[in-house]
């Protein structure tokens, strides 16, 4: 017998109810008519005939109902009436409903908001064809440009070409420049003129295979292809992202006639990429893609197209259908050896060969794309997800408690209904429906809350200049998640009260249900709920305490420079068209430095290639007479003469750069204390010489000074290997400009920008901020986790307080009688208060006792997020316990007070 068939018929029935009713009525009418006719034929009067027919047929209304019931639509109808009834019941106790809805909205909303970020950063697949076939060479945690013999993360463009030809495991290979170039470019109109100011464009260089291999189509025009990437320098074409086309070109349908000017080169727009495609890196969506063949024309003009040993590309492959990851790994590693050795300019020294033979490239599935932010945010997001899940649990416990209390109040109603013959399952279904109505309403509010919270969250994790390009809008998957959470919530908080409320001793409840026995029976469950709320709140509070302390510790780390009172901005000189080694560029820099230094309120000013947390140029240094370890990377910072004054990095020995150090004098360097101690022979390193990178004669430097260690990349880093070079000796196409000032930031900022513009009107100034801000931004994560976990921790305590208040108010009202007797027998009011308070404190104490070991265990999970201390932190623990005790006692105070106000006469007369 076909069960599926039966289900299908039932469902069809749902959609054709009216038709069904009409059919049934017609059928029954026919029956009655025929019967009446028969009776008439037998000679009965019309009235008698009709009566006989009806008598024989039975009650038509009831028969209709039973027929409908056969199709199970009764269940559905009662479901709707339950919803209406449930909504009415909720309106009847508005205070409870508001509290429940708010805590649900906050709980569900927070879960939705965090999940949407988690989804966008960690879970979602790239919007490309069969993303699960894509693999990345390496682990995907490196970007930049290097000149090593071999690297497992980044590859040279010629390597990609060779791999593409020789591999046997990929149906396609593509190379992506590992950084997006930020260029101030121009959108040109049909006449080739720009009628707008320049704008910041994020340009991604990719191989010609990129779009075809990913299977990404064009929304308009075409995407890039192999022909665009076939020879260097003569394919000035660009494909725009859908977002950029919409934003900056107002979705111009004639965009294919327009051009883009980057640096000094004019690019033809050949297409707009498909709407959903944002690139292959989550959290960076390029505005446009340019074939790698044009790399020299896109500022800053990386020269990497023909360099066998300049590694700057991420390489991705699409596995052939029947090839396993292991097979592909073997093939790629074999080719890595062959291709690297095979380059005509390979330096096959013993050292290099050793290094090569030890190199193993792992392949990483990249269905979810590359991401620089994934590593950074995955742990905080997971922690926050756990936190909000706990908050939701607490909210559930709270609502369960409130519903329990209310169902006691409704005991009589339910008892009456049961006595009148309602089945228990029917009542449970109705109570669950009410919970569902509550949860769904809360869920809808929660989605609204999540939409707002998301924007706020995204701003919190973004760098302050541009919002992270993450798609965290509402989507089907997210709504599915929220719906699942909502229904789970309803089941969690609704089930126990529903079963509890319908398990009645009918006669007791009908007898007003105020017997002391009835009260006892229902308390333990509510108490368990309160105890678990307290325990969970403690865990969250302790966690919040740890993250807060960790944040404070981070902010107290001495970076080695003075973060206060430094203005920093970026000066971009692409528009001047000067190359990096053009002497006019250095002259421009010097002019800017001296004019800005002379401004009132400015103490010092300097260019530098880096300040803090801006990536790095790292190279090994070779000190004569020391065993050279090329694995020790030293950050190289090219700076102006005023850099150390501007940053206030103290000089320990020797001198800093001066006007005497010029392009033609001996090349000099200032080293950090840590290098002096670890990489130089004992004694004073000033005067020592060392070689840089490839150790060629023209890269010989003399140490002229030692400065105190300063942090370079993050506050938490340990080794501060920094080597400073002068831009007068080692030209650099600068970005960073720092100004130490006193007085008002905005005044100084305006006058500095004015001064720069007065020297060269064309240079572009961007990213104006303070050094302090820049440093603070590197702890965004920690701040995010600390602030949110504190917020949720307090919310948890607040919810628990409501839970305790609710429970105790209920207990007091149940025990009015007992309290009355006690007072009549001479108990003092304070004794009565204590009686109630004692009960609360006992529950809280049990909750804390359970919570402490859980909190300690949870601490261990987050240990590597913490700075400045390890695991168990007595301060956070004590603070959490004290706060919890204070808040819960306050919550218990009012019911206790009310208990002491009981008038014995009133209480006794009551029953």
């Amino acid at each position, binding site marked *: 017998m076909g069960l599926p068939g039966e289900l299908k*018929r*039932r469902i069809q029935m749902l959609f054709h109810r009216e038709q069904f009713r009409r059919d049934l009525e017609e*059928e029954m009418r*026919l029956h009655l008519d*025929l019967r009446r006719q028969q009776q008439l034929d037998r000679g009965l009067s019309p009235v008698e005939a009709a009566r006989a027919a009806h008598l024989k*047929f039975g*009650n*038509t209304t009831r028969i209709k109902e*039973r027929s409908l019931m056969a199709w199970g639509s009764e269940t559905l109808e009662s479901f709707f009436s339950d919803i209406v009834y449930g909504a009415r019941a909720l309106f009847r106790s508005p205070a409870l409903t508001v509290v429940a809805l708010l805590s649900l909205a906050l709980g569900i909303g927070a879960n939705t908001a965090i999940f949407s970020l988690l989804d966008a950063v960690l879970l979602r697949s790239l919007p490309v064809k069969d993303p699960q076939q894509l693999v990345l060479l390496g682990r995907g945690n490196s970007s930049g440009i290097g000149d090593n013999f071999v690297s497992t993360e980044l590859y040279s463009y010629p390597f990609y070409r060779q791999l593409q030809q020789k591999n046997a495991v990929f149906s396609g290979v593509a190379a992506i420049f590992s950084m997006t170039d930020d260029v101030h470019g121009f959108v040109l109109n049909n006449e080739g003129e720009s009628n707008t100011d320049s704008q910041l464009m994020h340009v991604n260089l990719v191989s010609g295979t990129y779009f075809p291999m990913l299977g990404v189509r064009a929304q308009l025009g075409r995407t890039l292809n192999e022909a665009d990437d076939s020879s260097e320098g003569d394919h000035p074409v660009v494909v725009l992202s859908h977002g950029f086309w919409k934003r900056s070109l107002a979705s111009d349908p004639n965009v294919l006639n327009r051009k883009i000017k980057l640096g000094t080169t004019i690019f033809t727009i050949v297409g707009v990429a498909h709407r959903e495609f944002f690139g292959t890196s989550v959290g960076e969506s390029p505005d446009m893609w340019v074939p790698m063949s044009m790399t020299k024309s896109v500022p800053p003009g990386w020269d990497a197209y023909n360099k066998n040993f300049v590694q700057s590309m991420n390489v991705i492959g699409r596995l052939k259908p029947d090839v396993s990851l292991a097979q592909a790994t073997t093939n790629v590693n074999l080719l890595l050896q062959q291709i690297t050795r095979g380059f005509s300019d390979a330096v096959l020294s013993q050292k290099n060969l050793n290094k090569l033979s030890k190199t193993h490239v792992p392949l990483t599935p990249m269905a979810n794309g590359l991401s620089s932010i994934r590593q950074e945010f995955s742990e905080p997001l997971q922690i926050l997800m756990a936190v909000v899940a706990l908050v939701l649990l607490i909210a559930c416990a709270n609502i369960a408690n409130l519903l329990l209390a209310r169902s006691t109040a409704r005991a009589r109603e339910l008892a009456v209904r049961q006595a009148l013959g309602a089945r228990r399952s029917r009542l449970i279904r109705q109570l669950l429906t009410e919970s569902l109505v509550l949860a769904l309403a809360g869920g809808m509010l929660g989605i609204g809350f999540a939409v707002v919270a998301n924007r706020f969250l995204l701003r919190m994790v973004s760098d302050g200049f541009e919002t992270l390009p993450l798609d965290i809008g509402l989507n089907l998957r997210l709504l599915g998640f929220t719906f699942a959470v909502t229904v789970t919530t309803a089941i969690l908080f609704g089930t126990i009260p529903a079963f509890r409320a319908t398990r009645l001793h009918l006669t007791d409840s009908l007898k007003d249900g105020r017997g002391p026995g009835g009260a006892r029976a229902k308390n333990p469950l509510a108490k368990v709920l309160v105890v678990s709320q307290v325990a969970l709140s403690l865990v969250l509070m302790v966690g919040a305490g740890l993250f807060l302390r960790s944040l404070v510790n981070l902010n107290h780390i001495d970076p080695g420079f003075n973060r206060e009172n430094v203005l920093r901005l970026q000066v971009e000189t692409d528009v001047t068209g000067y190359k990096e080694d053009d002497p006019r560029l250095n002259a421009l820099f010097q002019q800017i430095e001296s004019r800005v230094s002379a401004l009132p309120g400015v103490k010092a000013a300097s260019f530098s290639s880096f300040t803090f947390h801006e990536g790095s140029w790292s190279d090994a240094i070779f000190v004569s007479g020391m065993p050279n370890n090329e694995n020790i990377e030293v950050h190289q910072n090219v700076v102006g003469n005023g850099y150390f004054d501007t940053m206030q990095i103290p000089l320990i020995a020797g001198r800093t750069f001066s006007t005497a150090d010029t392009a033609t004098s001996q090349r000099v360097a200032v080293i950090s204390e840590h290098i002096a101690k670890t990489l130089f022979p004992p004694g004073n390193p000033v005067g020592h010489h060392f070689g840089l990178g490839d150790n060629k004669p023209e890269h010989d430097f003399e140490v002229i000074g030692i400065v105190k260690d300063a942090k370079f990349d993050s506050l938490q880093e340990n080794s501060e290997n920094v080597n400073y070079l002068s831009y007068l000796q080692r030209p650099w196409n600068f970005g960073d400009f720092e100004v130490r000032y006193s007085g008002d930031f905005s005044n100084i900022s305006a006058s500095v920008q004015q001064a720069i513009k007065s020297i060269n009107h064309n240079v572009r100034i961007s990213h104006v901020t303070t050094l302090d801000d820049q440093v603070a931004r590197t702890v965004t994560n920690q701040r995010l986790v600390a602030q949110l976990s504190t917020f949720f921790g307090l919310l948890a305590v607040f919810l628990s307080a409501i839970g305790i208040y609710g429970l105790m108010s209920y207990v007091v009202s149940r025990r009015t009688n007992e309290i009355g007797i006690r007072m009549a027998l001479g108990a003092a009011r304070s004794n009565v208060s204590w009686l109630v308070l004692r009960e609360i404190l006992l529950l809280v104490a049990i909750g804390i006792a359970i919570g402490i070991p859980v909190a300690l265990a949870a601490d261990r999970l987050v240990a590597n997020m913490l700075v400045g201390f390890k695991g168990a932190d007595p301060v956070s623990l004590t603070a959490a316990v004290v706060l919890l005790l204070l808040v819960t006692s306050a919550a218990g105070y009012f019911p206790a007070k009310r208990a002491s106000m009981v008038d014995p006469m009133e209480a006794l007369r009551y029953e």
Partner: protein
Amino acid sequence: MSRDEIPPGTLYLLILKTLAVRKKLHGYEIAEFIEQQSEDVLQVEEGSLYPALQRMLMKGWVVAEWGVTAGNRRARYYTLTADGKKQLALELSKFQRIMGAVTKVVQPA
């Protein structure tokens, strides 16, 4: 002449059997057939046919289609399906088992 209620649980059997014999009938005809065949002994509360028919439709034992009666009125005609025939066999053997048992109990030893 006395009329008896039909034994509980046999309504399906009666309807199934009726349709097996007469192939295609509307509700009134089914009721008439049962009463006539039982020589007016079995009295169906005629209305109760309809919930039973609905349940049988849902289970897929019968199918219904609209047609026109001799008196030129629209009527819903029911016919047996393959599932319905199987069900008839099942109900029959169940009925015979029960009747056999009842007979054994009430027969004088």
